[in-house]
């Protein structure tokens, strides 16, 4: 925390209260405060910094140092609205300043043109509420570039023949190639595919006072102890603090947005660290709480005017959830890869980004990456070949042989939006603050499962071409655990089938804006964070323009 932060009173009517400090919230806080507005960011999690980012797998993974805690905030799951949901851990997200961007893998793919216009190009698709975006790739392109340069993305422009047009190269060269990347690249070329260096939100060179990646090997699920991972914490939040107009208020769990008699949002009601109720007044409210907590907050904020949830006249709040599809193929090679060193991914390919439904028999598309994102305990508990001994001498031998020789091919693909797939309030289960728990309802669209199987088959071909000694993949299964949280307050021109307009303003409440994974209309082919951040830069421009022309209530 810098000393430049102002301390606003809750009774001060600031210009904006931003709820959530992750990929989108961090950027909105930065942009709005740099534009001269007074901003309070309310973050439910703690304010941790680099010194807190240890490599202790138990503290970070088992004890949820950085993530939502299943005992404090329990969740439920069911497949369809006809089922009764059962308590189970249904999602994970970063619960700290910087949000999920603090612990993510940092794959930063841009969406392609097709992702914005798929409905008119290939739709309609039975069983899916597929819709075009109200904006196109061209509208978002300048903001993708902004993310790459202001937040920091490593990559190589022009390396993939499938890339959409770009206005500028990457600001930094790609990260070094890993052994998994070399294996992937050689095998993919043998098959006539087009591998290329993965665009990653991790610094390959020192930049803006931040260190380059030191290849520590504790990347996915861990915070970066040198600030090389381009999280909101390492980037946008610090820039926002430098303006002297932005206060980051951690341990502030917002559970209600209140309206005045004119139907305008007056600010946010939250539990502080001692669980006392506070009310932060603001001229406008921007919710960036992620694709699960944003709809939950709107549903928790139901009132007389909006009995089904704030800004929910469409009935779409929480609906059309997309998790992204994709499978994992694990392979063991003859020689040590030592892929435990470094970030997760160094090579990817997009040859299958747009598949022809007439040829493959389903809608959607995806990409492949080569990675190793396991840490030692997690590897020993779950990444030996199926049927391996679980203890004893042979277990130990398998561990010492495989840990350095294993890598994974991940498929990442579309999830088609399905109206019943949703986050909603569980009618029975409460969290530690007495608030209704999140309930996940999810059943993959059949095409998503076919796509996963199809991508798994490509991964198998690739691993075989690479000469792996062993390979395996779990059977394709319906998902019941959410990481990517997309589409639950989708953007659109029609207030009947969307929650926000293309300015991220809710159709129903004029000074209420939503921007995060919930805004997405389609899922892309995995890797949504880059698009969430580009949207946040664009939303800030739109909101600033509205405010400057007096179109926001004072």
């Amino acid at each position, binding site marked *: 925390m810098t000393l430049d932060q102002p301390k606003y009173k809750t009774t001060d009517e600031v210009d904006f209260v931003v709820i959530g400090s992750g990929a989108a919230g961090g950027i909105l806080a930065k942009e709005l405060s740099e534009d001269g507005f007074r901003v309070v960011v309310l973050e439910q999690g703690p304010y941790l910094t680099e010194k807190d980012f240890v490599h202790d797998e138990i503290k970070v993974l088992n004890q949820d140092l950085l993530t939502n805690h299943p005992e404090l905030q329990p969740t439920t799951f069911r497949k369809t609205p006809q089922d009764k949901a059962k308590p189970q851990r249904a999602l994970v997200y970063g619960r700290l300043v910087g949000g999920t961007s603090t612990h993510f893998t940092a794959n930063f793919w841009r969406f392609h043109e097709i992702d914005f216009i798929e409905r008119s190009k290939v739709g309609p698709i039975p069983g899916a509420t597929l819709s075009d975006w109200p904006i196109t790739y061209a509208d978002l392109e300048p903001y993708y570039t902004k993310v790459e340069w202001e937040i920091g993305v490593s990559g190589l422009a022009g390396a993939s023949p499938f890339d959409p047009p770009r206005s500028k190269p990457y600001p930094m060269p790609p990260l070094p190639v890993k052994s998994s990347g070399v294996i992937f690249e050689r095998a993919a070329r043998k098959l006539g595919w087009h591998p290329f260096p993965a665009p990653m939100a991790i610094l390959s060179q020192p930049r803006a006072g931040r260190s380059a990646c030191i290849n520590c*090997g504790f990347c996915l699920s861990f915070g970066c102890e040198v600030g090389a991972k381009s999280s909101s914490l390492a980037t946008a939040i610090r820039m926002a603090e430098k303006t002297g107009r932005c206060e980051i208020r951690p341990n502030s769990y917002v559970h209600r947005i209140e309206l005045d008699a004119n139907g305008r949002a007056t600010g946010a009601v939250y539990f502080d660290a001692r669980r006392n109720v506070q009310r932060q007044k603001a001229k406008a409210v921007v919710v960036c709480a992620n694709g699960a907590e944003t709809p939950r907050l709107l549903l928790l904020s139901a009132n007389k005017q909006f009995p089904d949830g704030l800004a929910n006249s469409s009935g779409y709040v929480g609906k059309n959830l997309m998790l992204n599809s994709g499978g994992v193929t694990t392979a063991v090679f003859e020689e040590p*890869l030592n892929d435990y060193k470094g970030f997760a991914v160094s090579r990817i390919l997009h040859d299958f980004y747009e*598949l022809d439904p007439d040829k493959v028999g389903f809608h959607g598309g995806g990409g492949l990456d080569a990675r190793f994102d396991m840490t030692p305990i997690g590897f020993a*508990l779950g990444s030996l070949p199926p049927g391996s001994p679980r203890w004893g001498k042979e277990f130990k031998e398998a561990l010492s042989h495989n840990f350095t020789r294993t890598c994974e091919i991940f498929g990442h693909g579309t999830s088609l939006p399905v109206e019943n797939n949703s986050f909603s309030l569980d009618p029975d289960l409460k969290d530690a603050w007495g608030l209704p728990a999140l309930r996940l309802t999810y059943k993959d669209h059949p095409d998503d499962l076919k796509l996963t199987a199809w991508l798994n088959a490509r991964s198998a071909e690739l691993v075989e071409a690479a000469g792996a000694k062993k390979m395996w993949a779990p059977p394709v299964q319906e998902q019941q655990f959410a990481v990517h949280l997309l589409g639950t307050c989708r953007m659109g021109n029609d207030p009947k089938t969307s929650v926000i307009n293309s300015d991220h303003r809710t159709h129903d409440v004029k000074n209420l804006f939503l921007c995060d994974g919930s805004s997405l209309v389609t899922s892309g082919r995995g890797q949504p964070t880059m698009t969430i951040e580009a949207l946040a830069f664009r939303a800030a421009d739109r909101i600033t323009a509205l405010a400057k022309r007096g179109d926001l209530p004072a």
Partner: protein
Amino acid sequence: MLAAATHARQAAQSTTPAKFEFFSAEQAAEVDAISARIIPTTDTPGAHEAGVVFFIDRALVTFAKDDQRMYAAGLPELQARTREMFPSIQRFSAATPEQQDQILQSLDEQSAAAAGGRRSRPAAAAQSFFETVRVHTIMGFLIDPDSDKRGNRDAVGWKVIGRDNEHMFQPPFGYYDKDYPGWQPNPPDADKTKS
């Protein structure tokens, strides 16, 4: 940063006297013996050399408090099973390694086989006594030795699996990238087919 890591390592080691916070000396000997069959000492160090019993002892008064009862009930059952299978032997730790393996085999119900799952996080509370000790042993063998958990003493666990005890690496990392010639563009082809 390296100095800090060294300091942390020394601090961790200095808190590793043969003093237990949860186990009695007798219990500790049994847990040490079990862990030494889960990850045995071979031509390389095993759970015993990694000080896994110290890790488990601290776990049971910190993050794994909920498992105290599992150990309190499981250890007497283990001894009962030992005497049942080998009437002349009073304690598990007094049995031969082969006998110990037979005893543990009988306890291992494979109950955790289903709990694998690539995407799931390690289960906080495992099903059976054996599975609990198995998971704790693996954790104690492979935890970051610089943590405050008293496990993976001298990073022997990491040495066994081939992980250098460093937190900063430079390429080349492994066999396949060591002679990588640098990025070459994909060969031009007219056939940029979409499947």
